[in-house]
């Protein structure tokens, strides 16, 4: 479904991704792990067309996306929820959804209100008035009404209280069970283990590990080697 093949991305002169390859198949939830600065966000930004890889290819449903504008990639069904969440503070909750809504999509605004009753309560509130957890819910809801075929999520639980994290995990599980493929970047390993079918680990711009949920769980050395906080 989504195939990233040997991409090299740069910010100015700094070489952030040095040949990243990964794949997300239909219906899979795949996590991309790694320490800060490993290039996880840059990988997502490259897929979404916000950074243009200088080499390598990214195909989504068989079509090359490198070189296309980010709005075209979004229209083809790639929804990217950024770590900053990108909620429009000048717009109400409902307007945030309306600007993203696509008629005839799989999720309507009514559907996402059912998934996130809190958002319905706050529909007339400005985006700026939302808590971090509500912003994250709105960001996910907004991506869903945009009628995506794949969801890219960048650290959806970052900075949220444990009870809200559980709520987000529950929602992500629901999204996964609906058959929506997800590529998840997440620092919280517990969250990843609960959700993922497969894991990739990124280090210094390269994929250094790829394995199934069971392989990863059975091999604590991998975790220690690549993900433990360096002293």
């Amino acid at each position, binding site marked *: 479904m989504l195939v990233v093949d040997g991409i090299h991305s740069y910010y100015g002169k700094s070489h952030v991704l040095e040949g990243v390859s990964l794949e997300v198949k239909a219906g899979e939830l795949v996590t991309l792990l790694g320490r800060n600065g490993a290039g996880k966000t840059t990988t997502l930004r490259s897929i979404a067309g916000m950074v243009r890889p200088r080499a390598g290819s990214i195909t989504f449903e068989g079509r090359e996306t490198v070189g296309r504008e*980010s*709005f075209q990639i*979004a229209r083809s069904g790639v929804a990217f929820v950024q770590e900053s969440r990108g909620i*429009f503070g*000048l*717009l109400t909750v409902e307007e*945030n959804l309306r*600007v993203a809504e696509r008629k005839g999509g799989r999720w309507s605004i009514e559907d996402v209100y059912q998934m996130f009753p809190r958002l319905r309560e706050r529909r007339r509130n400005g985006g700026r008035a939302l808590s971090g957890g509500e912003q994250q819910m709105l960001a996910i809801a907004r991506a869903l009404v*945009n009628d995506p075929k794949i969801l890219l999520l960048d650290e959806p639980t970052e900075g949220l209280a444990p009870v809200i994290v559980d709520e987000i995990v529950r929602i992500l599980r629901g999204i996964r069970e609906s058959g929506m493929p997800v590529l998840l970047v997440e620092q919280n390993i517990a969250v990843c283990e609960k959700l993922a079918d497969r894991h990739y680990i990124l280090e210094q711009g390269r994929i250094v590990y790829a394995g199934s949920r069971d392989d990863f769980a059975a091999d604590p050395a991998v975790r220690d080697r690549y993900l433990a906080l360096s002293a």
Partner: protein
Amino acid sequence: MANVYVFQVLNGLGLGMIYFLISVGLTIIFGLLNFVNFAHGAFFLLGSYLCYTTVAWTGNFWLSLIAGPLVVGALAWVAERVLIVRVYHLPHTFHILITLGIALIIQESAIMIWGPVGKSVPVPELLQGVVRFGNFAYPQYRLFLIVFSAVIGLLLWLLLERTKFGALVRAGSENPEQVALLGTNIFRLFSLTFALGVALAGVAGVLSAPLRGAHPFIGTEVLGLAFVVVVIGGMGSFSGALVGGLLVGLVQSLMTSIWPQGASLMIYGAMAAVILLRPYGLFGRA
């Protein structure tokens, strides 16, 4: 004596609404595109000349009120597609350079086409009379100007606050990258908004033609005033353009009865005071 002030207040409202129409376009363009349009006054000038020509050829002011803004908006759309789109990612100095260039081209073309001497435009026949309130009489056209601009302002407000296009413009003024991530063609949104903002300057140019005529250097003067309005009201703010426009219009108009030489002083003094007390303008946000 009191009548003189009523008269000047009404004049000030009319003038203020024209300033509002000019400034609101400037401010919407700045808000969404983060782009300073120094050609805004020149497009106003073009609106005035198009009004002159349309009335000269057809005798129909109303036709010019439709055709003027359409032509001005279409030219703005072309200018955006061909030139301006190339400098968005560059610093503001480049925006100023390219739009100042466009302004000069428009102004000099106007001199070539219509000559260096100003043209006057007759008040449309339908509105040549006066409206009487008791023993007070006020020109119909000036009243029409106030009402018509208010209607345009209301329609614009509805467009910005109640439609998806408006929500996209507001969202884009905050985070255009995110708007693109939701699948909106941000380049088209920019072009449309630029054309809309400039067309409003065209409307203002047409409306002011029967009062002030069309002359080649009116663009520069109007641009300066529009910046004053936007600085007072706050860059990117609809309400700011309305309040700032009315304030400048009323001050200018009342000062002509009180102390004509001081009109500009008062306006720029007000702007200086706003900059000192509220650097982002009355309705601006940091």
